[in-house]
Every structure is written in C-alpha cells, then in structure tokens.
C-alpha cells in the first residue's frame, strides 16, 4: 500500500470517528452545562418531603407541581416567609444604581481616554486596567476596616460605592475600545461647523456608541447583581439589607429552611440574569471578544 492510500485510509477513519464523536461531545457538553439549571427549576417545584421520598426523580408530574416554595421564599419574614422580596428590592437598587453611576462617570471618561490628549492619559488607563486584575480579597481587608470606622458598613450605599469604583474602571476600558473605532473625521466635521468638544461628544459620539453603552450597562448589571464577596463583608449583620445572593447563601447554611424553598430562591436569583443574557447575547459576546478577534 502506498503512502498516499494509507493516508487516505487514515483520513477516512478519522473523519468517520469525528463525525460520531462530534455530536456526542456536543450533547455531553449541553447536558453538563444545562442539567444543573434544569435540576434547580425541577426542585423549586417540589415540596421537600417529595424530594426526600424520591431523590432521583428527573420529572415532576404536572399535577404535583407545587408553587408553595415560591410563596414561602418571597413572603416577608413576619408572615412566615424568607423575605426574598426585600432582597430582590435591595439587589435591584444596588445593581441599577451601579449601572447609572458607573455609566455617568465611565462614558465621559472613556471618551476622554480615547479622544483627548491630556497629561497622564496613558498612566491613567494603565491604572484602570490594573484595577481589573487586583484580587478582590486584597481590597476586602482595608475596605472592611474603613467602612467599619466611618460607619458605612451595613448600608447599601457603601456597597454601591465599592461596585461603582471597581466597575467604572473596567467600563472605561471596554468603552474606549469602541470609541476608538468611531472615525474621527465625523467629529472633525462637526467641530468645523462650530461644535464645542462637549457638543461633539453629545451629538456625534454618544449616539454612535449607543450599542456599546447598552451592552456595557448589561454587563455592569450582571456583575453587580451576581456579586457576593463585598455583600458578605459589609451586609452580613443587617438582614434587611441583604442582597439576593447574600440571602440565599446565608439561608442555605441553616437547616430550618427547606432546600426546595431555597431552590425557588435560586431560580429567582438566576432568572433575571438568564433573561438579560438571552436578550443581549449577540451584543454581549460580540463586545466581549472584540479584542480577541484582532489576532
């Protein structure tokens, strides 16, 4: 058998093997990625004793679906629930506040770093990028001490400030990359027509950068909504200020709250993120990998 035919045989064999393996791998990955979420939803519909009777069940008959878990987890504490409605309000306040404040400081900042030459520009953007890689745990110690001392610990405002500080540096980096892609000639035309710098920014650059700003807003919302460490550090002792993440993690440690009730809490925590993600997936993934494609 010549080299060429041997190569051809090997080629056919490999291609056949791959055509079998590929779908198997895809199905396997999908199962691995999605099963925990399916299990989460499934358990949230089952009363606890139902789970203990039959832990292996992967299906719950429609007639046995029980939404009592959701009522229990959402209801306020004084009527026997877990008070997740309050947690949702807290998470929403912090996440939306972070989005608004971070964009307010980051959008002009990103424009400045992209377009205007000022003293220390390179150093400042390098510093902002470095913030992204700082270990949060390194910041945890001083911020905890600082907040304890000035009495901001336990307040949602204190948490909000920390989030804005961490997120706006990253946002500047992401948005700057987008501003860099907007042709400068558009702005120069407006400048010749007598627009001031700020006028150019408002009327030309901001509208053009809207897709990036929106995807950045979603990204910030997800970070703030999902955040756990600083919420744990600052809010632990103030149950009325717990975020959904913190509430779920605290209550899952106690044996008094049924697991299935907390599964309903997990669904409540996860659902907004998944909805946002599917609404914005195209924008978000495009924006996130914009740098990687440059090769």
């Amino acid at each position, binding site marked *: 058998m010549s080299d060429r035919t041997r190569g051809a045989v090997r*080629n056919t064999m490999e291609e056949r093997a791959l055509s079998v393996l590929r779908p198997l791998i895809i199905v396997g990955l999908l199962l691995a990625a999605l099963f925990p979420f399916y299990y989460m939803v499934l358990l949230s519909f089952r009363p606890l004793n139902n789970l203990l009777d039959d832990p292996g069940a992967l299906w719950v008959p429609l007639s046995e679906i029980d939404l009592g878990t959701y009522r229990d987890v959402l209801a306020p504490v004084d009527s026997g629930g877990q008070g997740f409605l309050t947690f949702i309000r807290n998470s929403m306040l912090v996440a939306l506040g972070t989005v608004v404040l971070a964009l307010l400081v980051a959008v002009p900042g990103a424009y400045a770093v992209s377009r205007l030459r000022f003293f220390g520009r390179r150093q400042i953007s390098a510093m902002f990028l470095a913030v992204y890689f*700082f270990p949060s745990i*390194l910041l945890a110690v001083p911020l905890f001490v600082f907040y304890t001392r000035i009495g901001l610990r336990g307040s949602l405002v204190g948490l909000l400030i920390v989030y804005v*500080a961490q997120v*706006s540096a990253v946002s500047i980096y992401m948005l700057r990359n987008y501003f860099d892609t907007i042709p400068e000639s558009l702005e120069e035309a407006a400048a010749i027509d007598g627009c001031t710098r700020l006028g150019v920014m408002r009327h030309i650059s901001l509208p053009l950068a809207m897709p990036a700003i929106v995807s950045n807003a979603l990204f910030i919302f997800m970070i703030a909504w999902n955040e*756990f460490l600083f919420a744990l550090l600052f809010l632990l002792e103030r149950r009325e200020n717990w975020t959904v993440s913190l509430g779920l993690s605290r209550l899952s440690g106690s044996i008094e709250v049924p697991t299935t009730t907390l599964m309903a809490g997990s669904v409540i925590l996860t659902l907004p993120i998944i909805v946002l993600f599917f609404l914005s997936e195209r924008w978000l993934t495009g924006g996130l990998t914009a740098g*990687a494609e440059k*090769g």
Partner: protein
Amino acid sequence: MSPGGPAVPVQDRPPTRESPVATPRHGRSTRARQDARTGLALISPTFVIVLVMVVLPIVWTVSLAFQQVRLLNLRTTGIVGDYSLDNFTAVLTSSGFVDALVTTLVYAVCGTGVAISLGLVAALALRQPFRGRGLVRAALLLPYVAPVVAAAFVWSTMLNPQYGVVNEWGTGLLGWNDPIAFLSSRSDSLSLLGVELPVPTALLTVIAFEGWRSFPFAFLFLTARLEAIPETYEEAAKLDGATPTQRFRHIVLPQLLPTIAVLSVLRFIWTFNNFDDIWLLTGGGAGTEVVSVRVYNFLIARGDIGAAAAQALVLAVILAVLVTVYLRFFGRGEERA
C-alpha cells in the same frame, strides 16, 4: 471586578492619532490645550473614585500588614503606629499557611487547565455550522453568566450524600457502595486495578466546579479566534492529504496557542484569587482552604486585621511574581494575541 465577570480582552492600543489636518499653528495649540483640560475634567470623577476606593485602600493594606491591628483596637490605630514584621513572621510560620498556599496553587493550575481544555473541546466541536448552533453556543455560556451563589447551591444539593441526585444515581445505577461526600470528604481511596489510590475528593470537586463555571469563557475566546483563521490554509492541507488530526496539530493549534496563552494568564489570576466558589461550596473545609478563604477567616472570625492584611499581601506578591515569570518566558509570542 472579579473572576465572575466577563473579561476585557487584552489588546494593543492603536497608535496615538496625530491630527491629520494641517491647521494653523495658533488655532491648533489652543484647541489642544482646551482638549487637554476637557480630558482631565472628564476623567477626574473616575480617577478620584478609583483612587479613593481602590488605590489608597491597597496602600493602606500594606500599612495595616505591618501593624498589630485587631478589630477591637481599631478605633485607636492611626496611620503612625508601631510598624513591625510580626504579622509576616506569624503568618508565614503559622500552621496551615503553606498548606493553603499549595492548595491555592493546585486549585488554580488544575482549574485553569480543566476550563481551557473543556473550552477548546467545545470550540472545536461547534466549529462546523449546523442548525441551532447559535442556540447551543448561548446555552453553553450559561454556567459562566449565572450567579455564583445559585450555581454553588445547586451543585451542593446535587452532590448531597442524603438526597442529592448524583449519589442517588451513583448508588442506584452505577453500583457505588456508599454515597460519596463530595464536598466534605478530605480524602477517599479509590481502588483502580487493585491499587488503592488516595483521592482528595473535595478538592477535585471544587476544581470540577471551577472548570464547569469557567470553560465558557475559554470557549468564547477560542471560538472567536477559530473564526478568524482563514479557511484556505486548511483547504490546502486537505488537498495535500492531511488528516483532521494532522490539520489540527499543524495548522489550527499553532494559531490558537497565543490565545490559549492569554487565557491561561487570565484564568490563573482569577482562579488564584478566587474566594466565592470555595467559600460557598465547602467553606474552606475538607482540604480546600485556599489563601483567600484564610484571609476572610482571619478578618471576620478572628478579627485579626493585621494578619489578614499580611496574608492578602503575600498572596498578591506571589501572584505578581508568578505572572511576571510567566510573561518573561512566554511574553514575546503573546503580545500580538
């Protein structure tokens, strides 16, 4: 902000633009001066908040690490205190610190490895278009965007020895003798071909969780890179009789290596500092205590601020050294990635 968030890809700055229009000397310098002033005004809010909430606290950590500060005497401690190396000697010689450091390294290296390998497999498997590929891709990203607290809670319920679905199936269908305490067992022995091997169960479980949660990140980046490879190379190789594995080995993989190198650095940094996942899954027990969990315990449980600061600092310094060494060795090839 944290390992939880999607990353900003590292990329080169485009060259600084010089104004292409030849404007009169006088007018240009006025405009440039105005621009400089506007620029500073626009950047200063972010600059101030980052300075106050990130940079100064870091500096303060350094100061705290050299003082005997406890939560109890916090109000009486000033900037000028008694500086000493006591915290560092106490921390470095304390029992458990070296173990925690080793655990952190193992966790970070293995977690990064699993995440990138799975991401690569996923990216390659989904390379050829098929119906519904967009949806599959989006679905594979879910572990990465989902809140870590919810994901960890579902995992620990699934792995629960009493009513978790994994143990239920394992004992019922796979013939396990006993349920496995995935999250609370420091070490089990696994008999493989008659040899008893010790297995760090809980550590492997948190590594698996890290791989599950982070592989979408690697998948995303590798997919983007795969799509940028021109098809002509592979077509030419195919005509020359290269088999699929040969084409991967000699054409695709070399193109992916720079991206893999960048991913390794990013994932390693985040996994090395990771607190949330381990704290939520095991609380740092059963041989999974990493340094960041230790820092938290010193800070909250013991109220020993000085020791917590010293450990956080040691962690950051070790990380910085490791990343610098890595970049020294592999840095050249990466810059264009």
